[in-house]
């Protein structure tokens, strides 16, 4: 583990220029992330940033961290593998609502139950942006898109309740309506020792609905700290999370005050136990050779 030193937001900004549509909410997410990483102070080469596929999944390329723009829906298993192979890395995962809750929806549960020390940022725009505006799992019922020309018949997934129900130790929400709040929330998520989830309401200006643009979000946003929410109260968090889609609660819904050990730490412990009295590596073949 390296010593932390002084870094500035610009140190995490790569030379690659984002090709998101002008005005896309994802620009704010990358800004918030630069600030959060600067506050954490780990050098970029000690950060691994893994994403799936989607507009939002381009984000690792815009940072100086090691990045891997993987396969649609598979950011989390790959991030998990990286964390287990090299637990000293600060591992971040990111992607869209489609990536995380549609094709990749099955993975979250397993990272949560194992409590892998990864921060997962979902840029939730309630649409498939990259593929030009199809219905996503978080799209509102009744939403008209190219794949739902008469209006969607499906209820949306509630990402906050989803991860809270699986027992995630850190669950928060942010939006570009409050950049400083977003940076602080991402920083807190990264500092949480275990699986941390941040849902960012990140408007798609090209295919998103009017109500989900910044002005609409501002009108429904409410800061959790300002309304006196206690982030140690999981049931209160679940109660508030039910309002996903109608209200935009910003800040930390839930933070386990007594974080359980992480899977990566347990694995290291188990490896240490099993290696006690084990043969040195160069004699491992002896196990298979009958004397």
């Amino acid at each position, binding site marked *: 583990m390296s010593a932390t030193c002084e870094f500035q937001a610009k140190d995490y900004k790569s030379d690659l*220029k*984002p*090709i*998101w*549509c*002008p*005005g*896309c*909410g994802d*620009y*704010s997410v990358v800004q918030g992330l630069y600030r959060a990483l600067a506050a954490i102070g780990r050098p970029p080469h000690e950060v691994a940033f893994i994403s799936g596929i989607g*507009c939002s999944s*381009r984000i690792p390329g815009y940072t100086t961290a090691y990045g891997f723009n993987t396969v649609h829906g598979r950011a989390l298993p790959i991030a998990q593998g990286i964390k287990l192979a090299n637990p000293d890395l600060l591992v971040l995962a990111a992607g869209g609502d489609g990536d995380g809750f549609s094709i990749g929806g099955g993975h979250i549960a397993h990272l949560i139950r194992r409590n892998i020390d990864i921060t997962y940022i979902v840029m939730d725009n309630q649409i498939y*942006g*990259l*593929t*030009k*505006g199809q219905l996503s799992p978080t799209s509102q019922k009744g939403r008209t898109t190219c794949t739902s020309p008469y209006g969607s018949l499906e209820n949306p997934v509630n990402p906050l309740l989803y991860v809270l129900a699986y027992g995630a130790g850190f669950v928060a929400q942010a939006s*570009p309506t*409050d*950049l*400083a709040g977003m*940076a*602080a929330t991402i920083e807190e998520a990264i500092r949480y020792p275990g699986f941390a989830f941040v849902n960012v309401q990140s*408007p798609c*200006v*090209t*295919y998103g609905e009017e109500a989900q*643009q*910044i*002005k609409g979000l501002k009108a429904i946003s409410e800061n959790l700290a*300002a309304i006196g929410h206690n982030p140690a109260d999981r049931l209160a968090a679940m109660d508030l999370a039910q309002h996903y889609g109608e209200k935009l609660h910003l800040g930390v819904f839930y933070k386990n005050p007594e974080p359980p050990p992480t899977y990566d730490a347990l694995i290291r412990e188990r490896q240490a136990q099993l290696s006690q009295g084990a043969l040195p590596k160069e004699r491992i073949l002896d196990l298979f050779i009958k004397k």
Partner: protein
Amino acid sequence: MAARIDFAHLSLMDALDLAVLIEEEAKERYEEFAAQMDQHRTPEAAKFFRLMAVNEAKHGQELADRRSQLFGTAARTVTRAMIFDVEAPDFDEARAFMSPRQAMKAALASEVKAHAFFVAALPALKDAKVRALFEELRDEEVEHQDLVKAELAKLPPDSGLSDEDFVDEPTAQ
């Protein structure tokens, strides 16, 4: 964001520092918008956003000079986290294929927003010097609006056409 500032107890040094941060934030946002316009081959809008960035930087520098004359190198106690989008246009004000007129209108809306910020803060201010500074800043926002309006007036008359009338739907990334 106004709620994070304790206006009643704001000192002149903190008020000047906040004013510098507000200009700095606006400058960075305009630079970012200019970069987005460059990336999407909209050079006229990029040029205008760059002009705005230069203006914000100039104003920020004037305020920073005043601050250092009055308070030297005394450590700053206010932070960027205390302000958000005061004079900077909202993130989603940028658009693909922005015309110069649209870019100018976005800037004008931001100057109006900044004016409203100073107007809203005034009643809470207790220190007479801070009040005078905020009044000055409020009035400068009107001057900034006039500058943008002057740029708007230089444009050929609005054709009434929108970008959607003659370009393809933006390609999603």
